[in-house]
């Protein structure tokens, strides 16, 4: 088909078509941008509503928390004290420690004093006493040294006392003892 329109009219028609297409493109871009903004606005509103709902729940939980704060403080206090138990409570089996002195004493030795001292795990044991036999005093020291947890035993004094023809020896034996632990109720 032959277009008989004049050249100017033909060009104007073509321009008008291009302008329509361009306008449509402009509108599309504007709509996309507008829709994006509207979408963002709506999402913000929705998220804000969700956050506010969560905040309400959080406030509610906070109220319940505060209503029970004494109970919480008490529970936390118990928990705290339990954690410090080993530091502040004596876990050593003291009757057994005392028994140690009885166990190691030979039958011909009399103790006149016994002392366990020291707050750390290792106790210093000081045994003083008397016997007619030097050998028994040395046996006491050796027996003490052979006990579990005992080390560094030594005789620090050994003196001879004479009453008439009767000889008697007084002594001091010292040792270090890593005492066993035992919890009450266990």
């Amino acid at each position: 088909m032959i277009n008989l329109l004049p050249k100017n009219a033909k060009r104007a028609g073509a321009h008008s078509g291009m302008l329509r297409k361009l306008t449509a493109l402009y509108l599309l871009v504007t709509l996309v941008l507008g829709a994006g903004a509207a979408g963002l606005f709506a999402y913000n509103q929705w998220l804000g509503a969700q956050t506010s709902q969560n905040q309400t729940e959080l406030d509610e939980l906070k109220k319940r928390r505060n209503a029970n704060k004494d109970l919480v403080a008490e529970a936390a206090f118990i928990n705290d004290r339990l954690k410090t138990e080993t530091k502040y409570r004596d876990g050593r089996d003291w009757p057994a420690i005392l028994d140690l002195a009885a166990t190691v004493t030979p039958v011909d030795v009399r103790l006149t004093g016994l002392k366990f001292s020291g707050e750390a795990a290792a106790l210093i044991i000081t045994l003083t006493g008397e016997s007619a036999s030097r050998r028994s005093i040395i046996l006491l020291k050796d027996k003490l040294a052979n006990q579990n947890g005992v080390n560094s035993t030594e005789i620090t004094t050994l003196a001879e006392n004479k009453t008439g023809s009767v000889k008697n020896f007084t002594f001091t034996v010292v040792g270090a003892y890593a005492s066993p632990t035992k919890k009450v109720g266990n």
Partner: protein
Amino acid sequence: MIWKQSRFWLVTLVFLIVNLLIVYLAYPPLLKRLRSVQQQSTEIRSKLVDDRQFVQNLDALNLKSNEIKRYFQLAEMALPREVASDILLLQLDGLLQATNLSSLSITVPFSQGITTTLLPPTETPESEVKAGSIGASRSNQPAKTAAVANSSFTLSGDIGFNQMKILLAQLATLARWHRLSSVELTVSAEKTTGSLTAAIFTLPEAPSALDDLDAGFLEAAKKVFDPLRPYATAPDSQTEGAYGRPDPLAPL
């Protein structure tokens, strides 16, 4: 050419103005708000998860509130915030009575630098008994200004080897935690005397958070606190005793 047409320029100008307005005026505040709401939402959701868990734990604790109250009292007695020498004195007195060793002397700290001795009534003259009795000791108690972080008590007097063993076994059940620093027995003139000294502690800080609460803390508390015995109840002047004497200086 299309750009030679005024309509093209008009449409383009309108397009640019409208879109620039959208891009520069609408988007920045919307994006800013989005970021802020998202951040807020994340924070709240994270707090919510923690708090829900916390309240769940709290509900479980609420079911055992009586147990908690009981163990709290025992925990406070075991390692108090203050020295509480008066209660310690009563506890040790109760312990000695329980072991039939009430003849032993008790020395407890009443403040840094001051000690008050409870002398056994059977071994002291009447005037000294009054001076050293529990009531008199309590009156010596100074205002609780400085907390003693680390102090000690001493039990001493006539005591044999086996009695000392019994006393030590009983002392292990004392509700007030302590660490023995010295146990001594001495024979002199066919009489055995003994003494024991133990350190006592106070811990002023009182945590109020449950964040690091062990799940089985009540079980642990049961194991630790149930075998302990207080040996004395705290005196309460509101409900206990009779008061008012016309002449308080008159002999009893």
